[in-house]
């Protein structure tokens, strides 16, 4: 049903006139190129999400509940986002109300004794981290970056650089408050039995699996309005001591913190070291990060980012520098590690364990990243995780393409093939020729270790038709390559089962085919029953995934 004056008034009565708009200019600011969290297709192929009929800014759970009830009564769809970083937070159907949850931004409680924090949707990770550090605590940062909402990803998976120590987002979900798609407010976990926020599974309703589905509800299963998240020890200063000149900010932490980029002679040694690190239970942050800039380019780019007067124009000259070349070669098979000692003995032990692991695997600490300035920059980068946007550094658009999550022993068998495949395409000049291996990911994709999430980036220029079309061809070729080699999903197409090329919902029949065609189907038919039970008025959209085939 279209938004009539009467319905608008009902919404206005809930949130107040200053917190609702259906002005075309405001609505235009809430339209999103369909894959904007990563790839931009520029003027040639960008397609915008359907325009919402109104945007509402609720301030509390009760307002969200009342909005949903009005939506259901009048047959309107609803899509909510916390920060709106990803295209999944925007409508894919007509007659949809867009909720922007930015006014729900309170840190409700930090319980430093029981190690949890209660937050609303618009508390971003950087803010929560800053507040937690005052209590000697820290929060898990998801791969999307410190600008993302920890609440939003708790109904997803949410791996990140610190997963080895702090797990996944959904693993950290304790008690919470959820407005169901029928408008009912459910308090889950211990909160549901009046026992506080401290446990997700009860006594009280245990709904974490329903919220998450198999791979996240993506804003299509009501609105989560408050959650308690498990938080973790931070044995550092109450305020991150940040120095340096933009963009080369850095932090110098006490001696119980160490950051290293570890290099290995072979992929096998790279994987062995990961297993040994997990076995030794060391590490606070464990991630392959700087390689996202490309194995041939990262050493030069790191110098540009750590010296405030440098520019991308310096890159080619830097890459000819013997020290940079040495850095490049030392870091062909590398990942980053931050050790955080809870006591002096702890850091001493972790250091010794790491030395032993390096000796056993033939690995080394990449010398160039031991340079005090680069080391202090890398430490800040990895801890605050505020540089997600560097993914766009080269040419304004990128996308994850090959993805090979699983045991590192799986990925290492294939990464050189993937690299060679991408290198061939790089020669065509349509993407950034980064050396072929631009893989990055969390070294510890199961809480405490056990997996490595490879994601290979492809950077391209959204304002060059040649570049966009060449990259789209590459994505198709990579998808075929991945399927033939049974390597997992080609990530650039992750939105396709939900949105068609016009930005609108993909019909269920087509979705069934897509799900069935993937090497690792990520849906269950049973999810349809869950959807029907919890969303009787079909408030949410196709982002809550299920198969009917």
């Amino acid at each position, binding site marked *: 049903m279209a938004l009539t004056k009467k319905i608008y008034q009902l919404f206005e009565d809930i949130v107040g006139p200053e*917190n609702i*708009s259906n*002005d*075309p*200019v*405001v609505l*235009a*600011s809430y*339209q*999103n*190129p369909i894959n*904007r*969290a990563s790839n931009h297709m*520029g003027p040639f192929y960008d397609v915008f999400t359907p325009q919402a009929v109104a*945007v509402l*800014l609720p301030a509390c759970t009760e307002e969200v509940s009342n909005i949903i009830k009005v939506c259901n009564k009048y047959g309107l769809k609803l899509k909510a986002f916390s920060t*709106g*970083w990803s295209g999944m937070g925007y409508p894919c159907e007509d007659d949809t109300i867009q909720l*922007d949850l*930015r*006014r729900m931004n309170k840190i409700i409680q930090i319980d430093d004794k029981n190690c949890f924090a209660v937050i609303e949707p618009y508390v*971003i990770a*950087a*803010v929560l981290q*800053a507040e937690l550090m005052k209590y000697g605590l820290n929060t898990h940062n998801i791969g999307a970056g410190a*600008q993302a909402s920890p609440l939003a990803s708790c109904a997803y998976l949410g791996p990140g650089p610190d997963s080895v120590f702090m797990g996944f987002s959904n693993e950290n979900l304790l008690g919470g408050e959820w407005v169901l798609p029928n408008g009912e407010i459910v308090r889950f976990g211990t909160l549901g039995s009046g026992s506080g926020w401290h446990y997700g599974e009860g006594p009280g309703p245990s709904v974490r699996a329903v919220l998450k589905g198999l791979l996240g509800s993506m804003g299509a299963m009501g609105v989560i309005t408050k959650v308690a998240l498990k938080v973790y020890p931070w044995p550092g200063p109450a305020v*991150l001591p*940040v120095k340096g*000149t*933009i*963009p080369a*900010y850095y932090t110098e932490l006490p001696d119980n913190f160490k950051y290293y980029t570890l290099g290995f002679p072979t992929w096998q040694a790279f994987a062995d070291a990961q297993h040994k690190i997990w076995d030794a239970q060391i590490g606070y942050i464990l991630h392959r990060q700087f390689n996202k800039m490309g194995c041939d380019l990262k050493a030069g780019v790191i110098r540009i980012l750590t010296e*405030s*007067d440098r520019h*991308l*124009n310096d*890159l*080619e000259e830097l890459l000819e520098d013997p020290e940079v070349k040495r850095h490049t070669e030392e870091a062909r098979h590398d990942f980053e590690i931050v050790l955080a000692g809870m006591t002096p003995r702890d850091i001493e032990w972790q250091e010794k364990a790491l030395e032993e692991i390096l000796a056993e695997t033939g690995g080394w600490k990449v010398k160039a990243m031991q340079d005090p300035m680069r080391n202090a920059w890398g430490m*800040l980068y990895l801890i*605050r*995780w*505020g*540089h*997600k*946007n560097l993914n*766009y*550094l*080269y*040419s*304004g658009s990128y996308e994850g393409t090959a993805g090979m999550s699983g045991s590192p022993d799986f990925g290492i068998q294939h990464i050189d093939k993937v690299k060679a495949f991408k290198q061939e395409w*790089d020669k065509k000049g*349509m*993407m*950034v*020729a980064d050396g072929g291996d631009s893989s990055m990911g969390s070294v510890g994709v199961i809480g405490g270790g056990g997996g490595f999430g490879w994601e290979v980036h492809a*950077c391209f*220029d*959204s*304002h*060059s038709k040649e570049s966009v079309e060449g990259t789209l061809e590459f994505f198709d070729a990579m998808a075929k390559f991945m399927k033939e080699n049974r390597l997992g999903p080609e990530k650039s197409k992750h939105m396709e089962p939900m949105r068609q090329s016009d930005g609108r919902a993909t019909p269920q029949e087509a979705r069934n085919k897509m799900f069935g065609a993937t090497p690792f189907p990520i849906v269950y038919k049973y999810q349809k029953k869950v959807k029907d039970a919890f969303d009787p008025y079909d408030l949410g959209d196709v982002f809550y995934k299920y198969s009917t085939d």
Partner: protein
Amino acid sequence: MALEDFRRDQERCSECNSCKWIPFDQIKSQRFAIGCPSIAYNNFTGYSARGRFAIGLALNEGRIDLYSDKLQEIVFKCLTCGNCDVAHKVCRYDVEPLDHILEMRKTLTGAGQVLLEHMIYIDHLRKEDNMMLEPKAKRGDWAKGLDVKIATDEPCEVIYHAGCRFSFDEELWPSARSAATILKNAGVDVGIMGKDEACCGSRVHSMGFEGEYRKFAENAIDAWKTQGVKTVVTSCSDCYYAFNRLYPRLGAHFEVLHTVQYLERLIKEGKIKFGKSIPMKVTYHDPCHLGRQGESYVPWDGVAKKIKGQINLFNPPKPRYTGARGVYDAPRNVLKSIPGIELVEMERIREYAWCCGAGGGVRMAYPEFSGWTAAERIEEAKSTGAEAIVTTCGHCERNFLDAVETAGEKMKVLDVVQLVEQTM
């Protein structure tokens, strides 16, 4: 430039929200984590750089109408403080949020989409050479009784430009008088333009009135050239920005110094001697136009090129205005050299300082928003335990004075130069 020329910027916005916060690396608390006053006050995403990119793109593609009250409000309810610009540039080399909003304003004013509140000031500017709603004849009154050269009568190497705010806001006259007096007493061959001084044009530039800006800029440049001026000194950060960043685009080649830079120089040279101690804990507010927008203009004429297939560059390298080279240390060095002064820092400082709320024509058109922005800064200043917020811009001082008065606060609002004079 035209709005169409910003299409790449509009489409390259990654919707990451950096523009709403101070640089993520610098966040120390939730209370003072926000960088953009416009989104903080107005909430809808259109009031952020990210939203304005989306709206600019919609305009370019004809998806929305140029003649819209809401569009006007979104475009003009921005302080043009540039915090979004800095936060973006921690990671991005190819997006210019501040230039984009300035271009949106030019587009709207060019189409007659102007705010009536602004037009009162623009009309006055056209008639009286100032936007303070004061007669031109009173321009030189601030300097009455000072034995300072009038540059139109006697040649001088250094021009002290008081600016509109210091010239017409009597409560702020002591700052301008102190500056001129200190310079003169230190042996500087300084003069003022007196009643012949005019608006620098910086404010109208930020409001989108390009024609008015150029007129005042060209007149000032011509006058200074005629008088053989080598150095222009001003106590107003807006004027500093105009002379340092904008005028060189029109061919100006004067040394431009803010008063506080000159003071730092004179202190180093031993030409300013401090006497009595001023026991006071103060915090320093970085004005946007002296700080992050205080980087000098770098001429550039280049072409786009690509390396490594698709890495976008310019040849020669395009200047990158990140706020890194703004004027931050001079005021702090001066304050630290004053006996008795204890400088304590707020959380949002230097290139990611919170705006005072006076800029971009907002004080004229949206006084509540302007006042709220200033009050936020006063709260931040109070959190340091300082008894005074000290700054180097008349517009900031006025907005803070009003905010303090409205809230009944005890916080003192001072100019660095006043403290220097008090101790001499």
